């Protein structure tokens, strides 16, 4: 048994102490979790999607449970980038983990504005460009389904930031590898996948869609096989690191994502069920590597591709 295992992961110039991040929209601005876990234990967190101006979001109901999953249609409610920098970031001053800003705009100029606004903010390690939110009427997945838009958007953001740029992809497409390649062509330093799968629940009492937004994004354990498959498909087609996300709820599923080809992973919905699930997952990954006598977590990334 190896006495110690190396969990660190590199993404461009960034070093993560382990591959476990939290997913945007499921971990607030991180400080909310201080009571439930040691934030320093994480590789990092992706904060709630930020827009140039504060956004009110969709009308409620915004969430509904489904078998081993949930739909959400929050509609990117957020405090706006300025308030985030002024009020939320300082709460994390003493936390030793990467902070990744998830950014969202309805047009390229807004993404550029966000990148510029965050450029001087040292505490933000990287940008995750959300071209995949299914719950907004403009932007979001409308960009993310079109490879040409993705190339353009990635390259414009890239031009206005010195931070690593991660493009977050939607699973609601014919072929996610095409979109991933487009992100790389645009200069993305990494891609993260998957965002939620569009779904609908109908309230048979009212005979109407349950959510005020009608459709919502499916997340949670139910979707993990789709995410693992997509990471596996993308891994064979691109050279930049993949961040795997979608339904990870224990260390076995986390390991599946790594083996499929994810260098890092994000935990979303599972935080709701178990606020300290990320700690459990980090422990589980470590334990697995020890038992298997594998020295570094990097050694299992994409290992499921070797026959």
């Amino acid at each position: 048994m190896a006495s110690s295992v190396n969990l660190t992961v590199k993404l461009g110039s960034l070093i993560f102490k382990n591959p476990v991040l939290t997913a945007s929209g499921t971990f607030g601005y991180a400080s909310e979790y201080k009571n439930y876990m040691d934030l320093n234990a994480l590789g990092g967190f992706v904060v709630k999607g930020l827009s140039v101006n504060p956004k009110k979001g969709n009308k409620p109901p915004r969430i509904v449970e489904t078998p081993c999953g949930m739909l959400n249609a929050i509609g990117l409610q957020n405090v706006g980038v300025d308030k985030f920098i002024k009020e939320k970031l300082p709460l994390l001053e003493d936390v030793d983990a990467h902070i990744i800003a998830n950014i969202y705009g309805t047009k390229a100029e807004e993404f550029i504005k966000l990148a510029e606004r965050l450029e001087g903010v040292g505490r933000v390690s990287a940008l995750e460009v959300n071209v995949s939110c299914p719950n907004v009427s403009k932007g979001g997945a409308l960009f993310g389904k079109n490879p040409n838009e993705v190339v353009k958007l990635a390259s414009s953001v890239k031009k206005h930031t010195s931070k690593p740029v991660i493009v977050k992809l939607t699973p609601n497409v014919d072929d996610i590898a095409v979109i991933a390649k487009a992100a790389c062509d645009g200069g993305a330093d990494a891609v993260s996948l998957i965002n939620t799968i569009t779904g609908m629940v109908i309230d048979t009492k009212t005979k109407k869609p349950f959510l005020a937004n009608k459709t919502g994004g499916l997340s949670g354990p139910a979707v993990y096989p789709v995410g693992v498959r997509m990471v596996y498909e993308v891994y064979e087609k691109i050279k930049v690191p993949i961040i795997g996300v979608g339904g990870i709820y224990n260390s076995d599923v986390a390991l599946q994502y790594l083996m499929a080809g994810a260098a890092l992973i994000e935990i979303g919905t599972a935080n709701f069920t178990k606020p300290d699930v990320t700690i459990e997952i980090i422990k589980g990954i470590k334990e697995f590597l020890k038992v298997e006598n594998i020295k570094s977590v990097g050694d299992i990334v994409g290992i499921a591709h070797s026959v």
Partner: protein
Amino acid sequence: MKLEVCENKRIAKNTFSLKIDNPALFDASPGQFFMVKINDFDYPLLRRPFSIADFSDRYIEIIYKVVGEGTKILAGKQKGDFLDLLGPLGNGFGDIKKGKKIFLVGGGIGAAPLIYLSNTLKSMYGISYEAYFGFNTKDEIYVDFGKTATMDGSSGYAGNVVDMIESQLDENCLVLACGPTLMLKRLAYVCYQKKCSMKVSLESRMACGIGVCLGCVVETTDKDFKRVCVEGPVFDYREIEWQAL
């Protein structure tokens, strides 16, 4: 936090009282709630929010109604089983100042948090109050104090609890209420008419219970959204955009 079930018994039609061992590690105030994990495994996926129906050194009590899959499974839990609780969460009824005439008004399972509230008012503050509870039928009644109304007239006042108390309300009253949205909406209208004060505990679909998912919001009169789990579940009724509910 995994805590042991001490008792889980039926106390009225489809209504159960769940007593959980209190480790005495925290305090809880009336109106606060817990997010309860129903099973050890991830089905049902989300925790279920339940108000605190009573709270002592010995146990935490939750009174719940079986309405769906989660509560049905909960009803099967037995003494000695463990339940994972997150909480206490949210803002309760807060400080209740003497001076106003206090009415506790509950509808159906919404009476549950008012039990703990009534005990606290009595024991902690020595504040007196009147309590009114509305149910559909006699066999749904699980409270042993206050006056009751039933829709079918099988016990107490025949009709709606709001109608029962309407004539007694004025600007010197403070109503502390919890119940079905439609009842609260009517009550809010009455309180508005009578210029009476009211604090109200709201329900909403919750995923996290701790303010991060933004799933549980309710529209407020300043055209904003507030989170029921953090800014609530108890709100001053004037904050709420009742039209939107």
